[in-house]
């Protein structure tokens, strides 16, 4: 039976009015800055862009046909996926281990927490610049310390790993903080009981920590996966246009930027980014299905 619709009291009406007033700035911001550009992107992807966005010509699905037929796009999608395959698993596992250690009552935990979180505070562009010099073949610190002569970011076979390492390094601190907050919600009784039954630290980690932390882990994996699939700044700052490895590392968003803003072809750029959006939607859908099977909610 449907609930009878209650009439709002004057007080409730007043409250609702104020509630609207308070969320209105955010809503307007979202509509103008997020939703409208998103809709405009969809529209633009069906147009051939004229100079300075004036005189756009309707071309139907031509941009999409070009996207799906382009080897460059598929290569970039693969590059993006490869990057995510490094950043997400390593970023999550290392952060989890660190979080477990830093969640103990030890001297200097806040000091270490600060250190691991610091990369999150730095501007991504600055981070990328510093890594670019660390990796430099001629003058880089890495090659100097190890007395090697490796082209870390110019060898197509290893450049994608080098880029992935920067991503992992940047994201560990953030994941770690989320894990620590998740860890603090696990009651200490479980560990005490397990210790009495003679479970070792490692057993406790896999039998108690990992399953009880799975909602946090799932949240991190999902947000980081989306973050990794939309990576742009690392490739943009680290790789020069004439870098031999660029084609093997450039992400889809990098390609979007290149077409839309360097070459002034917003229509094709929009189609590239729509391609990525659809891909991310599929991935998210699969993840949501997996959630029911893998995540443990007590």
């Amino acid at each position, binding site marked *: 039976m449907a609930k009878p619709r209650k009439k709002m009291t004057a007080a409730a009406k007043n409250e609702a009015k104020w509630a609207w007033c308070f969320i209105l700035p955010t809503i307007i911001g979202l509509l103008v800055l997020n939703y409208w550009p998103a809709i405009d992107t969809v529209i633009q992807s069906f147009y051939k862009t004229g100079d300075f966005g004036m005189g756009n010509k309707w071309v139907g699905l031509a941009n999409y046909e070009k996207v799906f037929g382009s080897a460059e796009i598929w290569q970039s999608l693969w590059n993006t996926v490869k990057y995510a395959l490094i950043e997400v698993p390593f970023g999550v596992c290392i952060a989890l281990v660190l979080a477990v250690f830093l969640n103990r009552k030890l001297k200097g935990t806040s000091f270490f927490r600060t250190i691991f979180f610091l990369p999150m505070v730095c501007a991504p562009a600055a981070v990328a610049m510093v890594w670019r010099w660390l*990796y430099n073949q001629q003058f880089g610190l890495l090659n100097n310390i190890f007395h090697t002569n490796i*082209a870390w970011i110019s060898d197509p076979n290893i450049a994608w790993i080098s880029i992935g390492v920067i991503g992992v390094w940047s994201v560990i601190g953030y994941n770690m903080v989320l894990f620590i907050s998740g860890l603090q919600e696990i009651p200490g009784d479980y560990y005490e009981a397990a210790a009495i039954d003679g479970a070792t630290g490692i057993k406790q980690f896999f039998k108690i920590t990992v399953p009880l932390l799975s909602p946090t882990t799932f949240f991190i994996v999902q947000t980081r996966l989306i973050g990794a699939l939309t990576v742009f700044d690392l490739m943009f700052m680290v790789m020069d246009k004439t870098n031999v490895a660029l084609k093997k590392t450039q992400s889809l968003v990098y390609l979007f930027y290149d077409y839309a*803003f360097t070459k002034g072809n917003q229509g094709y750029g929009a189609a590239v980014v729509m391609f990525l959006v659809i891909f991310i939607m599929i991935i998210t859908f699969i993840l949501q299905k997996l959630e029911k099977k893998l995540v443990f909610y007590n």
Partner: protein
Amino acid sequence: MKRILSVVLALAMMMALVVTSANAADFTINVNIWDSNQQKGLQEIADDWTAISGIPVKIEVVDWNNYWTLLEAGARGGELPDVFWCHSNTVQMYMENDLLLDLTPYVEKDGIDMSQYYEGITELYTRSDGKIFALPKDHDTIALLYNKAIFDKYEVAYPTDDWTWQDMYEAAKQITEKSGGDVYGYALNTSNNQDGWYNLVYDYGAQVITEDHKGTTIGSDAGKAGMEMVRTLLTVGAPQTVVAETGTDSLFQSNKVGMITQGSWMINSFYTAESHADYYWASLPYADLNGNGQCDDGERWSCYNGLGWAAAYNTQHPDECASLIEYFCSEAAQKKQAELGVTMAGIKGISDEFANAFPGMDVSAFTKAESFNLYFRPYTRNTVVWEDALQQQGGFLDAWQDPSNAELMATACDNAQRIIEEAIAAE
């Protein structure tokens, strides 16, 4: 209560600020450029104009890449700076879309002789209907830069003004070999086009963009011969992985490279570098096509380019902007521009002083280049598209990566021919 008071006070102060600036009633002409090396000198010239007109000029520098993003966003939103530089890469689109102030009436009214400027530059900034949208600011040429200390160390003879590209190859080879690969004789990236490999294409008789801006001959036998010489030079130069990570200029300034070719717009960055006392300029080498041992007409080309001073179509102060532009492009101001070492002039034959603008460094190679065969920087309607593609994989990058393979360079020339033709067709 205190808080309210402070808010009121702050508001009152802001009001006062707004009112005073409105009372002053004058305005500033905002100028955007991309080269910080030129800012100081140009501000000095702009201040001369301010002394006459009473209108302050503020010159702001935005680096090359962001400059174009900013300008395009400004063009879309109708918020262009009052006065700014135009470049051959993009100016066609700005002119065709009427985004620049039409300077023709001012040129006619003030009787400016357009023939005093370099033809290529004037032509660039004149639309097909004859309207003039920018006045030539300057011109630049290319020369060979070498590090004397490196030549001394490996006992190689210095470059001369009579060098052929083959001579350059021999010298680069000696440096690279004698140093055991620690120092490279020469460095060239695919992105060094105007200051690098373009010149060889012209020396050997081909054109990157034909004179009507509708085609290319880079895939012809002459074009392939030029790029073959580039390939030969690359075999003794810095590998592509190195130049893509560090940049030829930085390599040179770190004493890792004996020779590079560079344009006159870059002099200041070498003049102010740490080991500038070792740096010397020589004329670009030539291609001795007929083998008679001397440089004949058509065997030595230098690219030249010229920026243009333009104003926004919707500026609030068109008359003042035009007056500033005319001043920047007057003989007096451009002479001063050359004397200050900012750049060589857009007006022909008044740049001799530029050679003396850098005490302790002889830059006469650039003014000498004015007597070579000059070609204007190749451009089409949307230059960036093919210029970018040429620098990357599928363009010349594959050949650069493996210079020992002559096949790759010939294929790259064919690819380049196709890339340029397709890009022009899509314009």
